[in-house]
């Protein structure tokens, strides 16, 4: 899981760095008016007028273009609202979501397709009877079988430390898999929870 986490942080940093400026504007004034036929015949059919103006200019007179001749009659019927948003935040969030979703997807595919193959490899030395157990029980720790070829003595310390980290990660993963398996059994098989 550690490497996934780093990948995630990398994504996060990448996102923050790439967001330099927001392409899309973050504020607008939106005026909603009845159609201009109310006051004169120059029919445009438009009812919503949007312009990028300062908050204090968010008035019918400044926003509605073309302004009908009888503006004094037309404008009281309009409703103008100043609105703001934060596209940068949206961009960051959506990118994070895409990152997370794709990471989860990749990891899920890995767990569903590749992991059974990898786990089965050491199992090939043993009898076929293990197949059944593998589905119900968490697979046996490979830590015992992994250090089969002793490395050169100069490298051993370094490799050993690396391996211990690796082992810890894989132990952690084993433990996690075990709990998920247990949860799955509670919910999908025994139906004792969350029905």
């Amino acid at each position, binding site marked *: 899981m550690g490497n996934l986490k780093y990948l995630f942080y990398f994504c996060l940093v990448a996102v923050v760095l790439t967001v330099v400026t927001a392409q899309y504007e973050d504020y607008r004034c939106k005026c909603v008016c009845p159609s201009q036929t109310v006051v004169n015949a120059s029919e445009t059919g438009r009812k919503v007028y949007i312009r990028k103006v300062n908050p204090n200019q968010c008035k019918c007179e400044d926003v509605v273009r073309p302004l009908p001749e009888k503006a004094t009659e037309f404008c009281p*019927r309009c409703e103008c609202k100043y609105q703001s948003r934060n596209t940068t935040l949206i961009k960051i*969030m959506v990118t994070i979501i895409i990152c997370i979703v794709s990471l989860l997807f990749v990891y899920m595919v890995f767990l569903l397709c590749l992991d059974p193959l990898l786990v089965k490899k050491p199992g090939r030395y043993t009898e076929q009877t293990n197949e059944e157990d593998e589905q119900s029980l968490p697979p046996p720790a490979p830590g015992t079988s992994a250090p089969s070829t002793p490395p050169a003595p100069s490298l051993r310390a370094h490799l050993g430390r690396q391996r211990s980290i690796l082992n810890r990660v894989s132990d952690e993963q084993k433990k996690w898999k075990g709990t998920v398996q247990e949860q799955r059994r509670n*919910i999908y098989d025994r139906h004792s929870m969350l029905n």
Partner: protein
Amino acid sequence: MMDDEEGIISFQAFNNPASNKKTYGSTNLMDTLEDLPPGIGQYDDFHTIDWLRDIARDRMRHRNIIKKKSEGIWEKIKSAHDAWSGWVCVLLVGIAAGLSAGFIDIGTTWMSDLKEGICLDAFWLNREQCCWLANDTTFDEAANCSQWYTYSKLFGITNSQGAGSYIVEYILYIIVALFMAGFAAMLVRVFAPYACGSGIPEIKTILSGFIIRGYLGKWTLMIKSVGMMLGVSAGLSLGKEGPFVHVACCCGNIFSYLFPKYGKNEAKKREILSAAAAAGVSVAFGAPVGGVLFSLEELSYYFPLKTMWRSFFCALAAAFVLRSMNPFGNDHLVMFYIDYNEPWYLQELAAFILIGALGGLYGTFFKKLNIMWCRYRKTSNLGKYPIVEVLVITFITALLSFPNQYTRMNSSELIRLLVNRCGPEDYRELCDYNRSITNVNVYGGSAVAGDGVIRAVWQLVLAFLFKGIITVFTFGLKVPCGLFIPSMAVGAIMGRIVGIGVEQLVVAYRDSWFFSNMCTAQEMCTVTPGLYAMVGAAAVLGGVTRMTVSLVVVMFELTGGLLYIVPMMAAVMTSKWVGDALGREGIYDAHIRLNGYPYLDSKEEFTHTTMAADVMRPRRNDPPLCVITQDSMTVEEIECILRETEHNGFPVVVSRESQYLVGFVLRRDLNIAITNARKIQDGIVSNSLVYFTSHTPPPSQGVMAPAPLKLRRILDMAPITITDQTPMETVVEMFRKLGLRQTLVTHNGRLLGIITKKDVLRHIAHFIPFFYNCNEDHIFLATLSPPLYLLNSLPNSLSFSLSQTLFRTVSPKLSSELSLPNSLQNCLSQTLFRTVSPKLSSELSLPNSLQNCLSQTLFRTVSPKLSLRSSQTLSLSLSLWNSLSNSLSLSQTLPPLSLSLWNSGTLPLSLELSLSLLIYAKICL
């Protein structure tokens, strides 16, 4: 402070003549908890916590800190940190809950629109945001927004109104929805199965003191967040508001581990979780006060008042963070809110009450059907294909919801549309009124509906039926799904329809005296259908969840004023009354029951006159209570007890003969302590004596006795005890108010038995068999059995389950009629069960052996009962037994006989019972 403690100890010493000498030595038994092996004081998965013990532990810890405070600056800082850690923790939880809510809100709004198209220039924007600055909007219609590409436009189909584009969009809508829902279901299955469902029933159970490991973990948080976005975006009829509570509680749990005060003490942790739950509702509806009240009313079990202020702080922090993220771009925390303040009139109250009644009806209907469907899923093969089920429901939902514009859009958007009044920008059919637009205040009043409104109403009726039915099947899918939004959407549709009806009524009869005050001089009538939609949403939500105060306050915060509180209250109250008349419990309680969680409802009343002696273990015929003596058992003996029994705790007594109580020790603690001692301490062997006393006898000279094992520190010396004559009402009340895990029963000061929370739950459930269903489908069968029984057509397969329900239904009735002691009643019902089942399984042709068995069991049923009464009736019962043994071969002669006996009238109740049983047998044959 220390005096209290010594008081307890000396009381124990008083109770405990064998060890009254030197008990003062060990008053600091809890202070040294740090020296104990890790794990002591914790709980196993699926166990109930002992509130009193945990709170006592926390008080000890607190005392310790205060005692050390004078020892220097560092200790002072430590003490200060301890004092404010609760506030820091809830602040962090609030911020985290707000951030995750903002994350989910933004993600959902973006992802929902992916079903229809994409913003090519900036893929991270949804349709509304994409067309944010598009100045060429004649109407707010997507077709005129050049940056937004629907899928048909993307595929180069230029004619946006043609059949080709419609088909392409339809197909892609379904495919994208299927992909999203399937992905959500897979994520849940692969990474965190606990992330499925709404989470509120489980949070309720957890807050009442139950341990579910991993339910509030990191993976659950992540998968629930992502799964919620995917599920809502897939267009399934589910919401993200309920799961917000779960997400916030996950945050609470994760942050509580930063502060050992909360992380290591389950009772204290629940204070943080209560606050987190409040924050969850607060961000879901933008209602901090409503969140606190929801936590208080619906979720929290054990709510010390200081938690309330802290919860409010947490809720406010969360709401503030979410508000500053502005996820919907409307300066509000939710997509739907009311920003108008049109008046309402007294006549409309009748309509609001009608809406409330409809809401209560729908709520009950929904709850019953949903529980039935969930039970079917649980017991049948359907439960084996969770992902296929999700895909099928998604397919149906997408297929049916696309053609109708009101179901095609996101539920939150639909609610927003329905609760708003018609303004000038509304181009939808829903707002197609024949208005005279000469008036300045043209959109303030009501008008005659145009054709568009009539069409819209028909579409809304279809949407109502569709949403109302599909939600029954959707809630309970194995994806993260909440109930608030779909319920509110159904209610809003209903309310809007009623609102339009009232509006047209008023407009049509504006001159009548009844509506005269609603129409002003300019022939302007003010009826706001949007308000009806909001009231309808509240009514249905109230009918489904049976919330009251918190719901009204949430609505009050959504509408932003006191103006509409009376309509809301009227509707919610009616909805609650109607709902309660049809079935008392809300959907969350029903789901708790369905899953059989050990939740002791503090709202229900217990009104039976049983005694503690009837409920306690061991029962009359059981082996005696498994106890540990304080100074005469060896390690091996205790290990043997641990191996052979499955009790979660053992009372410690002075000696087996006297049975004077010393204390209570938990199985887990005992296990850890012994394993640990064997590993670490020298000289602990199988035959070392185990001492729970403070003093050990001096090692006797000459004999090489192995080193003693002192376990006083893991002993709870102040267990709650009651006498065997305590009424169960009191006991249940104690379990509720004090949050006990178990209580010991004494008689004349001697230990007699034990009552655990599960015994109490079982006892309560015993009296309401029609609603209780620990693991089987009893409701269904209990309602079905009388007709079946009358129909006289019992297939063999049904008979067994039927007999089970009979066993359930008859036994409490017996107990209430005859006021039998519990053990006897149990025996009776068991024999009844045994009687009925062979009877039914071999309907017509009873072999002799079975007859024999049957009569034997019946005899056993009758005889203990009669021994309680008089010897005269014994002969009767014997004769009855004789007649019965013949009865099955000579079944024609029996009914007259039994009826005549029945009519003789002077029979004791027990005989009546057996007679009625015979008649029953006759009818079955």
